[in-house]
């Protein structure tokens, strides 16, 4: 210890350390108080969006409200005819939502040690009907007209210890029937059965109450597959297509297509005509990462996180034609879902 005496004495070193420790702890405390205040403001202050008590019944868009203030993170809905207009808020907070005229599927994060996740099913008035645990971070959900619920969660362990991720996609019905984990279905890629254990399935979209589309990944490749619930079987349709979304008339499927380039992942939108097998590519300069939703037979919706404000995002619309450009559709919104009231 004598050699270090050339610099400072031991007492001075301890004093400086104590000052740094106090400053560090103090900063954390000050920040924590502010953060708690911001949290209060975010959840109790007036919403940054225009809110209404009751929407007129009719076709609407159900989404996650990301406007700062009261109702942050809660399920919200706007009229399709007036997407920029006032939104009705529901009490339940969700990370991802999908809705039909009858039900809402809501993937939620439950804070705690450790943090856990669940799927909650609500009726049209947003009363909770059922809930079951999710195995990881909420990623995608879709619900069919009759009440089939598909959820995809990212199962991550301790990220410094695991060198990969895996997804878990399960289908259950609101009535309580369990269709299991899609990884355990028979998967056929170009007619060959896929037996690889590293297979991942995500991003389900329901065409009928038995037919669905989803993404299958294995060994770094992805495929869009067409699935059959009854037969517990999936067949590949095309390669490099993720998070499919089937059009209301079921003639087309829109999905994420990964751009071939080194470095960071970049996805463009693509639409496949199921009859002609013709693929239309919609290149996006900014890229995107969401499961698309059909607003009508020509228009797609998707969420984009804001780069300037963490936790906020907007929903954009884009015509399903080459060279179409996205337009801002709903501000401060995420996970859009179009609800059509069938007469």
């Amino acid at each position, binding site marked *: 210890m004598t050699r270090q005496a050339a610099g400072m004495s031991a007492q001075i070193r301890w004093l400086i350390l104590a000052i740094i420790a106090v400053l560090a702890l103090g900063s954390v405390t000050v920040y924590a108080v502010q*953060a708690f205040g911001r949290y209060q403001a975010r959840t109790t202050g007036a919403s940054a969006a225009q809110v209404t008590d009751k929407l007129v019944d009719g076709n609407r868009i159900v989404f996650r409200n990301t406007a700062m203030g009261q109702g942050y993170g809660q399920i919200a809905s706007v009229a399709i005819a007036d997407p920029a207009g006032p939104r009705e808020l529901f009490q339940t907070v969700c990370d991802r939502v999908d809705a039909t005229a009858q039900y809402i599927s809501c993937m939620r994060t439950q804070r705690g040690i450790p943090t856990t996740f669940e799927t909650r099913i609500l009726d049209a008035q947003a009363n909770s009907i059922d809930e079951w645990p999710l195995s990881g971070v909420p990623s995608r959900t879709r619900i069919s007209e009759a009440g089939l619920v598909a959820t995809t969660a990212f199962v991550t362990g301790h990220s410094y210890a695991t060198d990969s991720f895996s997804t878990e996609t399960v289908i259950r019905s609101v009535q309580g029937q369990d269709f299991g984990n899609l990884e355990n279905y028979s998967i056929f890629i170009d007619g060959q059965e896929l037996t690889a254990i590293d297979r991942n399935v995500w991003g389900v979209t329901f065409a009928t109450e038995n037919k669905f589309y989803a993404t299958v990944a294995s060994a770094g490749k992805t495929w869009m597959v067409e699935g059959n619930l009854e037969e517990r079987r999936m067949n590949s349709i095309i390669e490099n297509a993720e998070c499919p979304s089937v059009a209301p008339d079921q003639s087309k499927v829109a999905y994420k297509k990964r751009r071939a380039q080194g470095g960071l992942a970049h996805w463009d939108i693509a639409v496949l005509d199921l009859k002609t097998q013709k693929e239309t590519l919609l290149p996006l300069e900014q890229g995107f990462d969401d499961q698309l939703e059909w607003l009508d037979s020509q228009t797609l919706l998707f969420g984009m996180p804001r780069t300037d404000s963490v936790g906020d995002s907007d929903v954009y619309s884009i015509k399903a034609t080459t060279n179409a450009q996205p337009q801002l559709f709903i501000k401060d919104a995420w996970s859009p879902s179009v609800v059509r009231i069938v007469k």
Partner: protein
Amino acid sequence: MYLSLSDWTSRKASGADRAKTVAFIASPTVIALGIVSMLTDISSESVAAVLPLYITGALGLSMVAYGFFEGMNQSISSLVRIGAGYAADRSNKPKPIAVAGYGLSMAARIGLLFATGFGGILAVIGLDRIGKGIRTAPRDAMIHQASQPEHLARSFGVHRLLDTVGATIGPLLAFAVLMLVPGDYRMVFVVSLAAAVSGVAVLALLVPNRKLIQQEDAEENSEEKTSGVPRPKFRELVRGPLGKLLLVAGFLGLLTIGDGFVYLALMEHGQLEASWFPLLFVGANLFFLSFAVPLGRIADKTSRAGVFILGHLALALAYICAGAGDSLPFHICALALLGTFYAATDGVLAALAGQLAPHGTTSTAIGAAQTVVAVARLFASTGFGVLWIFLGSTTAMLIVAALLVLLVPVAWRLLLSKDKAPESALTS
């Protein structure tokens, strides 16, 4: 007190006996470095625990690209490690290099407060990993230098104990913060930064900036005229007992698959609720920190190489428990054995490498041993991924366990056979 090759050879026969007679005194430097690692692990593990939530929840991105990035990161970290070890030996002062490594990780925490896009996040994590690569070998060389040679493995055990306490507290702290202020990931990053700053402060202020080789000793070595500091030559490193250690550690590393696979295998058997997943890591850590000091002590009193090799037997048993058993006792057994494996190998390998390093190459030798192990494990994880794909988790796990059981006696013979002179020295 440093340990030159001549000192080491002269006392080799009695080394293990001396561990029984010389009283163990925990060095203040080792404890200070342990606290530095504890604070740094609180910092990095708290972020790691919430990163998937932050990327998907707050940033609205998917985890797909993150998985690809991880492998690349680990390769960079491994290569930087050996370079930093070499630099510490060359400059003869490991502390400034360790400070640079810890400082870089601290800077990454500041970056995290401002990074919003996915690219930004990846850059920040990359920076953190490079910092981790830089700091490890010089820090272990400092532990080596500050420890009593008779109690080297136990000293490393003390350090790994504190280090693992930090790794266990980190995720729990992060979840507690998110309970207090839901959705405020930046609050976690601020806590993480405060822990990182405190860690660097303890290192800078409390750990003496000692030379690895003291001046008067260096002058005695006539061949080191130019700078008074020997220049570590890789050729010298791979010859002799250290070379054998690198070889054995490398081969054993090739059969050490990522912990993630063990956890996934446990989950795959379906007996555990999904919410238990993050706690598996905590469970394994609790065993690691409980056994780190006792196993280091046993290694000093019996044989460091022996404990290091037998630790891999615990790993093989952990794979068998994880691969074959599907009830709670098997789960606990897998976690306990995994923790035992780390307690028997992590600090002990650094102690062994430091002990066997030729004069003036401590830091390079420790860095080399850790790089060899890290790179071998990277190959193991990739290869095992393929095995897992084709054979399923149970068969793949049992195959790796069987190979380990077969390799352990070979490793034992290579490092510990008494009839050859250099190997017997290893038992000291």
